């Protein structure tokens, strides 16, 4: 049995084909032209667009090389593992994620003389696959009105019973906290870390909720007196009209200045193993540690530059006031190998599970 297509059917099929073409043009075509722009650099990052986009724009303006980025809020390593070829450069807020990526064979050596010359060895990975362009202290924020810096010495104070019901903190499972708990574990051992975390959880004024700035806000509202947050938030809060009251209600304390030093979080930059755009991608990484870029980054983010001698924002210079060991905002850093921190993540998560950290108090 056979019949020919009627005019009406023909029109409908034409419409359907046109619709398919339309969908193809809308959905697929925008991404098809990327192969025609070999000089484009593709960046995958979990850092915020506010901080990176201005740097990328400046780079594109200077070199005419466009940068396309995907700003992931979560699952950076998962994405890198599943789609290793989609990016040339990976930039993270926590270099221990790059340590994990490196151990999974997702990165390639930087092989950059410029980076080796400029970035101190302690801010480069031993295998040469990634480096840091900035760092920030993961420090104690305290209430300016209700706490004296003389009452504080180290991170262990957070677990002291005298602060019961007066400590706030974000989720223990957040990368920032996993990182410093991993450093605590590296320094003090598993049993001691478990005790520290149990006591810290017992001191919490409320269930871990919100981000670092929410904790500063809680201090300003009197909900608690101490928290652990990244040092740059003080600068960010003070330079924002909405958040200034939170910054003004808090002060930064650099713990353990008589001992190992304060824990820091390193940002990280690397080349993906699968990139074929090595030369341009490497140039971008070298651009990130130029003096001008370092100054720009520091001014924008209030993070500390890794290159010695670069100027710091005035707000950073005033951090740690009242601490005799801290001069001009320069503090002692406790150096824990990233490999150790990355290896400790699993142990820390298990401890957090066992003590129900996020469900306390």
């Amino acid at each position, binding site marked *: *049995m*056979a*019949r*020919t*297509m009627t005019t009406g*059917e023909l029109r*409908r099929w034409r419409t359907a084909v046109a619709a398919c073409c339309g*969908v193809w043009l*809308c*959905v*697929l075509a*925008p*991404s098809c032209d*990327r192969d025609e722009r070999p000089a484009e650099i*593709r960046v995958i990052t979990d850092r*915020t*667009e*506010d901080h990176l986009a201005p740097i990328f724009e400046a780079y594109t303006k200077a070199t005419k090389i466009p940068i*396309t*980025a*995907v*700003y*992931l*809020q*979560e*699952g*950076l*390593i*998962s*994405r890198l*593992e*599943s*789609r*290793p*070829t*989609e*990016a040339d450069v990976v930039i993270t807020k926590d270099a221990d*994620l790059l340590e*994990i990526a490196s151990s999974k064979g997702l990165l390639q050596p930087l092989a950059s003389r410029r980076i080796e010359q400029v970035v101190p060895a302690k801010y480069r990975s031993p295998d040469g696959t990634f480096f840091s362009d900035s760092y920030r202290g993961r420090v104690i924020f305290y209430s300016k009105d209700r706490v004296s810096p003389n009452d504080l010495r180290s991170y262990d104070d957070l677990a002291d019973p005298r602060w019961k019901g007066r400590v706030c903190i974000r*989720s223990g*499972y957040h*990368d920032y906290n*996993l990182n410093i708990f991993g450093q605590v574990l590296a320094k003090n051992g598993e049993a001691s870390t478990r005790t520290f975390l149990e006591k810290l959880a017992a001191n919490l004024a*409320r*269930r*871990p*909720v*919100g*981000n670092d700035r929410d904790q500063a806000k809680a201090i300003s509202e009197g909900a608690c007196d101490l928290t652990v947050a990244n040092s740059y938030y003080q600068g960010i809060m003070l330079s924002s009209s*909405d958040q200034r009251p939170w910054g003004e209600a808090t002060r930064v304390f650099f713990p353990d200045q008589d001992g190992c030093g304060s824990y820091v979080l390193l940002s990280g930059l690397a080349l993906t193993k*699968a990139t074929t755009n090595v030369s341009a991608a490497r140039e971008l990484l070298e651009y990130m540690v130029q003096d001008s870029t370092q100054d720009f980054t520091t001014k924008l983010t209030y993070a500390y530059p890794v290159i010695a001698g670069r100027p710091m924002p005035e707000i950073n210079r005033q951090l740690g006031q009242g601490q005799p060991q801290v001069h001009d905002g320069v503090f002692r850093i406790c150096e824990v190998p990233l490999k150790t921190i990355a290896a400790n*993540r*699993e142990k820390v*998560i*298990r401890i957090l*599970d*066992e003590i*129900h950290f*996020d*469900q306390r108090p």
Partner: protein
Amino acid sequence: MRYISINGLDARAISGKVLSILLLAACVAPLATLAVTGAPDFLGSLLPHLAATVLPGQLAMSLAVSAGAVVAAVALASGGVLCGLFRFPGDWLLSRLLLLPLLVPTWFLAVLYQYRLGAAGAGALVLVLGVGFAPLVQLLVTAALRSIPSRYHDVLRNLGRADPVSVARLLLPLALPACAAASVLVFFLAWADEGAARTLAVPTLTVGLYDQWFGRQDDAQGAPLALATMLLSVLPAWGIWAWLTRGQFRGTARLQGRSMEPVRLRGPAVLVPWALGAPLLAAGVLYPAYVVVSWTVARLRWVDLTTLGLDLIDSMIVALAGTALAAVVALVFLQREAMARDRILTAVSTRVVLASFAIPPLVLGLAWLWMFPEGSGAAWVAWLNSTPVPLVAALGLRFCAVFLVAGQSALLRVARAHGDVLRVVGRTDLVSFVRLFRPFVAGPMSAVACLVFLALLQDLSVSLVLQPFGFTTISSRVFQYAQTQRVPDCAVWMLCQAVIGVYPLARLARWATVAPDRGSS
């Protein structure tokens, strides 16, 4: 069109079968990926550890929050439901106003309440989810009420008992099946929620999955947990669906003849719907609108219009393409069902799409991420991953279930003779199916299309996992701002998303309030 029929085998029927098998395979693929990836370590050390520590608490919390959200949504929807039952001054306005929470995703409501009022905890989450999902209950129950034949009301009138209380006592039980269906929908949406729970720091199953997975940054560790989450979501979904589709729940009272006209309220009774709707109006409409509009006015001059425009385009691509995909896939499955062909295939496909809907979107997004690994080095895989296709496909196939269930429900109104006629004349292809059944399914399907469009426009979890380079939806942008404590700066984006949703919402409202005998179906 030419087609060949040899020994009774219709080429178009065969191609229809092949197409439905292919689409079924596409729906099964992410579930199979989860099973294959998670199975090797399923009984390794992680799950026993979680079972001994946080998993029971998270499960209990998920169940409690989901059940609480159902109760809250039904209670908050009561004012809107009365709008469908009675006539009173301002009923049209109130019924529309109470649907407006659908324009804002629940996770943004959570962000807003957390940012402005410091809300946190299970109580706040239940309230937020109740506010966000109450319009769904209102829509489904109102539509069911409008399908009730007028003879019920005629009987009451003849007995002289046409007062509002008697009308409500008689008619509300008839809408119970719709209420049960809406409750199930709300339960699974609440169960799958991740954004609102995470914002309000409630340790539900999805939040636990997020913590474990991304805390470890290790797919091998996360996969068994994702598989467990899938099983915990899918098995109850199948059970509840089987219960719902038993005889007494297959739809509300069937409409035969004229549908019932709403009864007029008089005296102080006119205030009752307004009083019942007031909490939803305040918490889901007036307060969010006040905050978002005031933030927008304050920041309008700093808005980057180019970025906003591009984000709008990206969101529209996802929402439109995803909705179209979901509708087409559902139609293919419906056609097989209406033609009474491939009963096993039909039964399997229904369960598979239900499973895809029941899985938390975060898990589904990760399944699609794993489904196309670039490790094989295939160039087409890398190319595919650089497009929005995986994102659209993941969302489209997830929401196919909503189309399918709505279509199945609509087909129940159609006499079996319709399908028989098509079979007898050998016109069992998709085009003929659509042509014949369009009058019966067009209304519910277009309403569902509006609903799915809104849901896809507001998607966060899948978009965050699968967004390609240079592709940012409005929801992703708002989430970025929220993460960096710049919630007021994202107000313009959220307002734009809400404005885009106004037309589909108006269509939805019209579908729910126009009686079937006066509407398209």
